[in-house]
């Protein structure tokens, strides 16, 4: 028999304060966790990234193979384990054997792998590792433990603990993994204020970017008298280059729900919202299932487990606006308004959603709570640096060997993450910088690779923790172009309310556009404007930072100011030499005509908008560099591959 709802409520959830469950119950828990199994189990990493890499086909082919071979086995879609670049991932757990993982299992590889494994042998490629911690199970010989994989070894997984391992839509499995124990214990053991104190003591700080101590923030709302209070989970992960929240919700929605329940109890909120991007349909789908399950178990609803505590959780789909990451904008959005921030005070903790005390915590912050309650504040604060405790999830992407999600203890160096965990820069290219904190952050260069990651150290080098996006850039990345990219993003995503942000970011973008473009007309003031632009941009940046209404505007100039600090010479090259060393800025490219290939057909000269190409008919043509605006029309026109770009 497999434990059902009544069994779990009576034997597990009602005894969360017991130190040890009976051996019979423990056996049930092992089965639910798939640490032991009667039937073979096949797990497919089916997060958004897995599916994007073809996991659906992998899953279909696995099912087909099993039915063709008459094997009764279960195929379980799981979330993302973090190793996106190795997707699709496929795990197999044969009864009595340890769970074993394979990487790059695209549809056509499924048969080969399953053929071998079910025959008890290993395939030649694609083996990633096995789950060494399943001690009661027999090991696969010669297969390393997954935890010893260089990608996983330096990690310490609290938030990501179950991601990619457990079935995200099984509350039973979550309960078997100590799920909801923290919440039910908190209801029993802690008073609200005590719980706030406890979390404050743990040193947990907001993982959404600001880094405000979570327990302290809760106390503002707890201390405000009101007939209704709200908790909002901010899952509007708008930072381009960050996908932690998506992966956490897709991989372990119950952990988030439990964290929300704990936080809601601490501040006395009986209603909670998850504000999640509509662009994350899979995460929403899994969250909806998880909420229904928790309701069915009486973990959400009225008078939860007889505690007298009520909780309702509502999902609100964000309609796409980066600025809604800002607390007051997010509140306006839930209220059905344009997501424009308002001045603070009053702070949401005293007057927020519908004018009631409201606490907004980010997904990662909330997902930390169950483990902190279970393992203790001291345990949590023993990790990390003096000011930043616990772990941090980072999303690694860009010019890096292994892309994906990692959770590392605070205090780890940036170098460790990039060169050890993620395997460094591919294709033998040189590391240039890593952008941290998204459009509000800045870059960390090789000069600062050895800083220990915490909130303060990153700010000191002009970057920020942000929500945890790390986009790695190599020598082929143009830093002026990156600054331009962020400015373009920010000026589009600015809410348009306050003048410095609305007009200022647009002007900064225009200045960056002008220095990444050759002046079209030398007679006008355009060339002068390019020079003046660079003088302006720093000044403008400072005023925008100093006067903008909300955090988005105040941090908007950061990518420019940061790249200007570390890569000033690249800016100067663009302005003075009209040259982009990375070859990214199209409009600064140098075009020449290869006399060998040129047939003198005159087509390029006819197409050139500035009459920069000269040459007689049937004679090789030439480009006058001073007149060329690098539009590329000649390259497109040439049928003989005679136009060269450098």
């Amino acid at each position: 028999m497999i434990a059902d709802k009544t069994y779990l409520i009576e034997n597990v959830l009602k005894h969360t304060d017991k130190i040890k469950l009976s051996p019979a119950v423990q056996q049930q828990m092992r089965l639910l966790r798939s640490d032991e199994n009667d039937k073979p189990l096949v797990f497919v990493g089916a997060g958004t990234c897995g599916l994007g890499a073809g996991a659906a086909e992998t899953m279909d082919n696995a099912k087909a193979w099993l039915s063709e071979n008459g094997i009764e086995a279960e195929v379980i879609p799981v979330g993302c384990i973090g190793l996106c670049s190795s997707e699709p991932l496929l795990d197999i757990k044969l009864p009595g054997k340890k769970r074993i993982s394979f990487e790059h299992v695209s549809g056509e590889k499924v048969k080969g792998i399953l053929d071998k494994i079910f025959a008890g042998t290993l395939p030649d490629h694609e083996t990633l590792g096995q789950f060494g911690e399943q001690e009661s199970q027999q090991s696969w010989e010669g297969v390393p433990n997954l935890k010893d994989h260089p990608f996983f070894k330096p990690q310490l997984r609290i938030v990501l603990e179950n991601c990619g391992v457990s079935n995200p839509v099984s509350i039973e499995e979550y309960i078997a993994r100590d799920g909801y124990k923290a919440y039910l214990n908190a209801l029993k053991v802690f008073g609200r204020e005590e719980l706030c104190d406890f979390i404050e003591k743990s040193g947990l700080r907001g993982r959404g970017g600001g880094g405000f101590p979570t327990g302290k923030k809760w106390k503002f709302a707890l201390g405000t008298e009101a007939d209704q209070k709200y908790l909002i989970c901010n899952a509007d992960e708008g930072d381009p280059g960050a996908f932690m929240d998506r992966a956490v919700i897709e991989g372990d929605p119950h952990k988030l729900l439990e964290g929300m329940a704990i936080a809601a109890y601490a501040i006395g909120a009986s209603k909670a919202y998850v504000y999640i991007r509509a662009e994350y349909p899979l995460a929403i789908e899994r969250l909806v299932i998880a909420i229904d399950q928790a309701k069915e178990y009486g973990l959400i609803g009225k008078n939860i487990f007889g505690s007298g505590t009520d909780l309702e959780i509502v999902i609100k789909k964000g309609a796409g606006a980066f600025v809604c990451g800002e607390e007051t904008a997010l509140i306006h959005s839930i209220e059905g308004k344009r997501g424009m921030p308002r001045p603070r005070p009053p702070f949401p903790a005293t007057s927020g959603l519908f004018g009631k005390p409201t606490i907004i915590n980010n997904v990662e912050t909330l997902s930390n709570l169950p483990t902190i309650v279970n393992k203790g504040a001291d345990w949590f604060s023993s990790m990390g640096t003096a000011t930043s405790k616990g772990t941090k999830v980072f999303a690694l992407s860009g010019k890096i060997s292994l892309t994906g999600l990692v959770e590392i203890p605070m205090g780890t160096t940036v170098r460790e993450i990039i060169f050890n965990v993620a395997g460094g820069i591919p294709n033998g290219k040189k590391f240039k910088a890593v952008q941290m904190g998204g459009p509000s952050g800045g870059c960390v260069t090789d000069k600062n690779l050895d800083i220990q990651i915490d909130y303060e150290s990153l700010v000191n080098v002009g970057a920020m923790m942000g929500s945890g996006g790390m986009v790695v850039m190599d020598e082929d990345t143009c830093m002026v172009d990156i600054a331009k990219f962020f400015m373009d993003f920010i000026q589009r995503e600015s809410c348009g309310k306050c003048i410095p942000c609305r007009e200022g970011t647009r002007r900064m973008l225009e200045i960056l556009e002008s220095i990444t473009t050759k002046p079209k007309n030398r007679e006008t003031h355009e060339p002068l404007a390019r020079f003046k632009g660079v003088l302006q941009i720093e000044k403008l940046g400072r005023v925008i930072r100093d006067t903008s209404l909300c955090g988005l505007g105040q941090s908007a100039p950061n990518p420019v100011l940061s790249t200007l600090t570390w890569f000033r010479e690249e800016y100067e090259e663009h302005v003075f030499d009209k040259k982009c060393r990375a070859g990214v800025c199209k409009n600064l490219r140098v075009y020449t005509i290869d006399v060998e290939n040129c047939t003198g057909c005159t087509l390029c000269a006819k197409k050139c908008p500035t009459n920069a190409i000269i040459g007689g008919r049937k004679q090789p043509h030439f480009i006058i560099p001073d007149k060329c605006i690098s539009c590329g029309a000649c390259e497109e026109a040439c049928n003989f591959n005679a136009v060269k770009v450098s």
Partner: protein
Amino acid sequence: MRSEIQDILDKYPSAGHDSLIPILQQVQEHLGFLSEESVVEVGKFLKMPTSKIFGVATFYNQFRFTQPGKYHVQVCRGTACHVLGSATVLDEIEKNLKVKAGMTTKDKLFSLEVVACIGACGLAPVISINGEFHAKVNSESIKTIFEAYRNREVVS
């Protein structure tokens, strides 16, 4: 006459202004876009001025006011995608479809939209066609992808 969106509105018996965005999302899911008539109707239902609803709808990236193509192409312009060349990908798609971002092809087959990060940075650059992801695309693979969609039409 019972309007097309009445079924959606029926689901919100005691709706306040905070139901506006969910209602608009459902209307768009149903119609493919927000028609003027639907916005007026939602306004009457919620007792909100149409101008306010228009203001809200134009604020968020999600809402559009014209019918999208049969295949709605979303090009991710997140940081990771940018670093790995999504600008070139976008150029290529614009050339391939002969429309600019924000427009629909003349045969109404494709509409092209540039979207903020879709959170699949590990697969950058990414495009999504009617919700289906295409990972690590480049100028070459774009051609094949769109050819495949066009061929589907010829077959059906």
